């Protein structure tokens, strides 16, 4: 085995895994709090990729030269608008369905997912979109022929993901809002009796999930520079796989699952076969569900009557 290929795939896997982890947070928090799979989450991520490109293009049209400034403003704008998307989707498509049949929110989520994909396709055109490469430069270890490299964008992705994750953990563990979230997750009815506005907390969770997906969307767009209206589909399933792998409902689990899945996928495409890497990831999902449905860090689900 060539050590430099292994090292390179580990670096790529870590980058990819951080992205999956960020998106998985949206799935895992929503599942934890209202017990539904938010199928539209992958498409919210797709929306954020478009918003990133639009924001960067607008900033450059206004003559903003500084790359760090442009990226910070873009990140902020994308997180805000994507957060509004998360809020609106919950308000329009999921809140009226509380207390409806179990299938209703799932089907509604599929509807929103189709709606978002087709809306972007109609509004922006079906063609591939892209942004110019903004951050160049790599760190390189090894000689000229065999080396392991990490681009500055990849480093940014890893740092930003861990930063976002740390911030979110602080928010959930240390603030009043976080305590309310945890209370609602444990027992929504009891939390309501204790005076927590659970509707507002559920909306907040959707906004947080969407904002995390927006960070992922911006970072991925900076890294790969190319996307279309369908990117949310496969990325969404993989992020969900990450959430299940880590234990759905668990925040550290989402990040751990994401990084593990990213590493597995990179190693698989580096050493086995690139064409079947998606098949491999989906198989991981099925295998985890069969052998350890509660994931690595999750608690087994108890059905209440």
């Amino acid at each position, binding site marked *: 085995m060539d050590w430099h290929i292994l090292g390179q795939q580990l670096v790529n896997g870590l980058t990819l895994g951080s992205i999956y982890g960020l998106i998985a947070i949206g799935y895992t928090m929503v599942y934890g709090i209202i017990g539904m799979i938010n199928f539209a989450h992958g498409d919210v991520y797709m929306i954020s990729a478009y918003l990133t490109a639009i924001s960067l293009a607008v900033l450059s049209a206004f003559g903003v030269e500084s790359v760090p400034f442009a990226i910070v403003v873009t990140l902020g704008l994308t997180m805000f608008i994507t957060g509004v998307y998360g809020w609106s989707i919950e308000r329009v498509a999921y809140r009226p369905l509380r207390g409806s049949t179990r299938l209703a929110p799932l089907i509604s989520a*599929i*509807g929103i997912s189709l709606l978002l994909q087709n809306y972007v396709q109609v509004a922006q055109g079906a063609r591939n979109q892209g942004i110019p490469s903004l951050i160049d430069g790599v760190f390189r270890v090894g000689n000229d022929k065999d080396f392991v490299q990490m681009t500055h964008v990849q480093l940014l992705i890893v740092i930003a993901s861990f930063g976002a994750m740390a911030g979110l953990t602080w928010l959930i563990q240390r603030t009043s809002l976080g305590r309310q979230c945890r209370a609602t997750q444990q027992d929504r009815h009891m939390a309501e009796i204790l005076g927590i506005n659970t509707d507002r907390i559920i909306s907040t969770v959707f906004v947080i999930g969407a904002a995390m997906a927006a960070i992922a969307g911006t970072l991925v767009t900076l890294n790969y520079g190319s996307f279309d209206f369908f990117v949310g589909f496969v990325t969404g399933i993989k992020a969900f796989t990450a959430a299940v792998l880590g234990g759905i409902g668990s925040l550290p689990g989402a990040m751990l699952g994401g990084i593990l899945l990213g590493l597995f996928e990179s190693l698989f495409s580096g050493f086995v076969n690139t064409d079947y890497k998606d098949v491999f990831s989906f198989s991981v999902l099925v295998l985890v569900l069969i052998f350890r449905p509660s994931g690595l860090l999750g608690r087994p689900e108890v059905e209440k009557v």
Partner: protein
Amino acid sequence: MSTHASPTFIRPLREAGVTFVLALIVFGPISGLVLDGYSIEPHLGRPLLIASIVAAGRLLFGVLEQTPFGQKLLARNARKASGGVTVARGDEYKLLYFVVPLVIAIGVTLPFVANKYWLGNLILALIYVLLGLGLNIVVGLAGLLDLGFVAFYAVGAYFLALGAQYLDIGFWTALVCAPMLAACFGAVLGFPVLRMHGDYLAIVTLGFGEIIRLVLNNWLDFTGGPNGASVPAPTIFGLEFSRIAKQGGTPFHEFFGLEYSSDYKLMFTYLVLLVVVLLMVRFLTKLRQMPMGRAWEALREDEIACRSLGINHVIVKLSAFMMGAMTGGLAGVFFATYQGFVNPTSFNFFESALILAIVVLGGLGSTLGVIIAALVLTLLPEVLREFADYRVLAFGALMVLMMIWRPRGLIRPKRPHFAPEV
């Protein structure tokens, strides 16, 4: 709240204002600033228009729900959307004796009057009826959300295409074997997943649908990859529906001394398909009255109660899942025959979503509703060609609206009459 209070406009206006701002934020960047390479092409009128429509709709609802008329509408809708079913009285059958022969008569005469274009559309519509009926067993009756239904459709279609290529099987063999193979796929996929909480099934089937498509796309040596595989013409009593028969066979048109026309193949496919659909409808109607069908619906309503009454939930769910897969495989054989060619792009996620939209709009569990929805959703886009871009948009919006207003479908479900038929 008093019914007779005069409607106030302040609250709806404020809400409409908030809605307008939110809609502007949501729709503004994506529809107002179109990416053109690395630059932006502004279309600032579009988000304003969309936001105005959304806000006006919000204002209208806000005012309407305060008027007595609006409240009556709301109450009526709540009554219709709430649970419960109408139990058939039993005398509906009299009407059926008249309607069913009429439908069959129309169905049989149609291919002889329709032109080639519409005959093709009719075949596709009937294929979707079959797919809708199959998915309806899984989603509507058993309450399992299957988002990869198209995988079983692909299994059926590719079984005929690849079977003809490697094993030299024909249409009739595939018609029997493909559903069985699809059911086996359903069992292999469903068995491990069905033991767990229902929602996981949705995402696993979604992944499975993608796996099948990716394998078909990437396994170049076996499936032909993106180029697809050709499907032989069907035969009837050894007579082929092709211009020149292969290896000593006789083409259909030569045997009867007719001019060659590809219409015969379409007519034949249509008629066989019609018979299969009619048998399927009959089969499903009967099935819903039998213990298995009733166990599906009971399990959908309350799984824990069913399990404590001794129903084996895994077996019952698996039977529904396999039955649905089987129907999907059957539809796949017809699709392959009709097209004469299969490739992986016919089996993408949008296809699954379209079938799901058919089942949801038809009303989860209603056979008649699913048939009508399949015919409408496949034939209507042919008429409204210029709105083709907005088709998926409309399906998505309709799915959300249906879940909010009529989660049980436009047609209220009827529980079959259990008294013995006289």
